[in-house]
């Protein structure tokens, strides 16, 4: 496929499979637009190498745009899961963190529930990612 200037293929990973979206996108397209297009493409099964998944949901995935370098001669766009952990945002003061924790605890009372107690695991946490994504 002949790509126009500023066009790029989007590489996607889903359900243990990896492939490129057949239609190129503008390198400077918004991340949200790219996630929307990827979601539609996976749901409809239009990405070679990735089987159709009508329930595909790319919440929590990041769009990574890699500009061409000497080693990598073309621009690349990768859609992959995020890998951040923890909840102390870089640059946040301890006071700001404590304040946010208190605020989130109030909001998330139905997100994390104490279910049972045992010797080894005194609490069973029930965490619903869908709700968590909506709060981010």
């Amino acid at each position, binding site marked *: 496929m002949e790509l126009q200037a500023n066009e790029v293929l989007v590489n996607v990973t*889903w359900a*243990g499979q990896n492939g490129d979206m057949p239609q190129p996108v503008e390198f400077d397209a918004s991340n949200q637009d790219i996630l929307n297009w990827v979601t539609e493409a996976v749901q409809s099964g239009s990405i070679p190498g990735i089987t159709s998944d009508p329930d595909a949901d790319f919440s929590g995935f990041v769009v990574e745009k890699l500009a061409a370098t000497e080693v990598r001669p073309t621009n690349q766009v990768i859609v*992959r899961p995020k890998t951040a*952990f923890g*909840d*102390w945002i870089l640059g946040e003061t301890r006071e700001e963190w404590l304040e946010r924790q208190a605020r989130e605890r109030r909001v998330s009372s139905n997100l994390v529930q104490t279910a049972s107690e045992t010797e080894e695991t005194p609490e069973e*946490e029930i965490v619903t*990612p869908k709700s968590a994504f909506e709060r*981010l």
Partner: protein
Amino acid sequence: MKEAGLVIDLNGRVIYQHLPEGRSSGYLPDSRALWEFIWENREDILGVAHSHPGYGIPSPSVEDVTTFRPIDQALGKDLHWWIATGDRLALYRWVGTHYASFPILSEPTWVADLRDVSGHYTKMR
């Protein structure tokens, strides 16, 4: 103390130490290197452990659970997600609708390494 991560293989061995630039006592930043390692070794990985500051029973943050899920979805399999504090370890797994904690009868040996690279010290019980 700085949070750290370990990738654990199906034999219970540490196959990757995740000590990214910018990690802090409450945060491990997004890392393409970690994802690439997980993807390249997906057949051999049992799960990922990371540390939390302080002591007591760890529970996943919103940031944690919104990372667990997309990685599980991208891999097409549900990993084990461990979280360690200075004196406790918890295991979370996707059970179809949410992440639930699972009992841990004895701590794997790598937990000491995780606490060590995180800068936790042993609490006297």
